[in-house]
């Protein structure tokens, strides 16, 4: 990691901007832009999204099935994705990530707003998206009955490669991802993670400057994950490939993303580097307590903590100021409470805490799996 870091002041986001209706402000003060502005590089923006709005109409209830009200799947979304970065969309299920991605890939027309990818207006010319970006969706049904080799080759040919280059690229990509041994197996005979990797391979055949990956590593083992991120990094280094990543996985988001937009109810509620976002809740630490059987509520310090804890069975999760956390740890490890304590962890905040602090609507954050 030889990345030059901006002084922290350049990255810090004024708290007033957090959670405001227009989150762009927070996008524009992140490290990279601050540096770029200093170095005289205006925008090297690969994908610019402005005021993107899509409303699903209300469905009238039929017999037995209740109707659903009108839903704003994306609500005035504005993001800038810069060349060569891995930009993440993070949020719980139903936050609007997939709808946003469908609009960026030309699969869905927005009601309002604009999408500009490398100078092309995707709202007006959705068919151009296929010639600029490669998309890895969540479904593999179109490829399931093909062999790994044919899935990659056919996808390459449909991306406009001739037979010879499609086969050459297929061989290179399968080799690169360690899929050569599985090349002649049909996708649906593979495990979930292997199938996902094969679909990722198909997405890579026929180089594109922008990769849109919807949960590319779902179900993968660590070796396959490493193959995916290795392949992505190689393309970034050699071709300046840009990646838009949809993810549920907070841990992965923290490690691979350059910048992340946190989405909730169709809006971008924050946008910054993972560490920049975490600084927004830097004043707090996360304390997790696991009791042997149940919490010793007869201890006054423990009883006092209960109001602030998110309880799930024997497990309590708390967000506390550092000195409060210190006192709490002393209380539970020192006196009578220690006998009832099974385990505890004290950690700096994760993106999950950021999401909670930003006022994500899903209080229990079901969609954000902390794997």
């Amino acid at each position, binding site marked *: 990691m030889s990345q030059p870091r901006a002084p922290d002041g350049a990255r810090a986001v004024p708290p007033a901007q957090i959670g405001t209706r227009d989150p762009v402000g927070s996008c524009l003060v992140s490290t990279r832009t601050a540096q770029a502005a200093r170095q005289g*590089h205006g*925008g*090297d923006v690969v994908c610019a999204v402005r005021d993107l709005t899509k409303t699903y109409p209300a469905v009238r209830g039929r017999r037995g099935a209740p109707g659903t009200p009108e839903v704003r799947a994306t609500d005035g979304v504005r993001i800038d994705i810069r*060349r060569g970065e891995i930009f993440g969309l993070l949020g719980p299920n139903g936050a609007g990530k997939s709808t946003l991605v469908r609009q960026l890939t030309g*699969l869905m027309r927005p009601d309002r707003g604009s999408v500009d990818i490398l*100078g092309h207006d995707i709202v007006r010319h959705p068919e151009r998206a296929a010639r600029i970006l490669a998309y890895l969706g969540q479904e593999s049904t179109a490829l399931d*009955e093909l062999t790994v080799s044919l899935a990659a080759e056919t*996808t390459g040919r449909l991306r406009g490669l001739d037979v010879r280059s499609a086969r050459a690229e297929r061989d290179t990509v399968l080799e690169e991802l360690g899929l050569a041994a599985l090349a002649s197996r049909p996708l649906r005979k593979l495990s979930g993670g292997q199938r996902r990797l094969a679909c990722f391979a198909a997405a890579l055949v026929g180089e594109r400057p922008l990769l849109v990956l919807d949960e590319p590593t779902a179900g993968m083992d660590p070796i396959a994950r490493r193959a995916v991120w290795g392949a*992505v990094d190689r393309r970034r280094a050699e071709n*300046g490939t840009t990646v838009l990543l949809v993810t549920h996985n907070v841990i992965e988001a923290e490690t691979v993303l350059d910048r992340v937009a946190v989405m909730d109810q169709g809006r971008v509620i924050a946008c910054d580097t993972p560490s920049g976002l975490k600084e927004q809740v830097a004043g707090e630490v996360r304390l997790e307590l696991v009791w042997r059987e149940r919490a010793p509520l007869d201890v006054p310090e423990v009883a006092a903590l209960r109001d602030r804890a998110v309880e799930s069975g024997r497990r309590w999760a708390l967000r506390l100021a550092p000195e409060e956390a210190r006192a709490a740890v002393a209380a539970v490890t020192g006196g009578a409470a220690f006998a009832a304590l099974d385990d505890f962890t004290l950690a700096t905040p994760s993106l999950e805490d950021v999401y909670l602090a930003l006022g994500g609507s899903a209080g229990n954050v079901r969609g954000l799996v902390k794997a």
Partner: protein
Amino acid sequence: MSVVPAEVLPGRALPVEDAVAEQAAELGPRARLWPALCAVYRAQLSRARVARIPLLFVATFQSIGIMVLMRGVVDGGGEARAVVAGSSVLVVAFVALNLLAQYFGQLRASGGLDHYATLPVPPAAVVLGAAGAYASFTVPGTVVTAVFGCVLFGLPMAHLWILAAVIPLAGAALAGLGAALGLLAPRPELATLLGQLGMSAALLLGVLPADRLPTVVQYARDLLPSTYGVEAFGLTFEAHPDWGVVVLDLAVCAGVGVVSLAIATWAYRRAAVR
């Protein structure tokens, strides 16, 4: 872990790049119709090895079974010709209409169309490639059924070569219909249902000798594209077939094929971008 900071990537350091970025970037190549069609066709054919072969047996056995049944009712002449021709084309209807409607119905419902829709491939290539592959699946079953029928009913095999025209043309008409039904049906179960109904219609209206049917049903028979394939094929069992009528019947198949494949392509476009 990403190890490449955006700042050190090629192109970042050059001010010229920024000027270029102002203009629209060059688009990737578009897949042309024929190569894309061939690629889709080849991929679809390869699926047969995994999924379709058992269904081909079903289609063939069904037609052979119907002929054996009809053997007890029909004893030669024009009716025998109609039964053999109808049973042979029924194989085409089973695979090209019924199975293709199911395939596209499921592909659409599961989001599988997104894969094709995010590739720069002409919609016609996807529809024609799949329809062509499904029509090809019918070849062995149709030939086996026709030969078996000829032996069973003692019909001449001299003009069986007409199958080389009947299968692709009836196949185009029925596969186009199947693809359109599959892509237009709002739910996959409906696509399956419509495919089954279409095949049942081809069975009843194609296999049963026309002159025994009520007038209303005969009109329905005239509306079904498979009928013209059946008629064309049936005529060639005569000692001196009226080739003009055969060509006319096949031309109707071709016309329906063009129209239904065009509708299917439109339906694909509509289903792909919502």
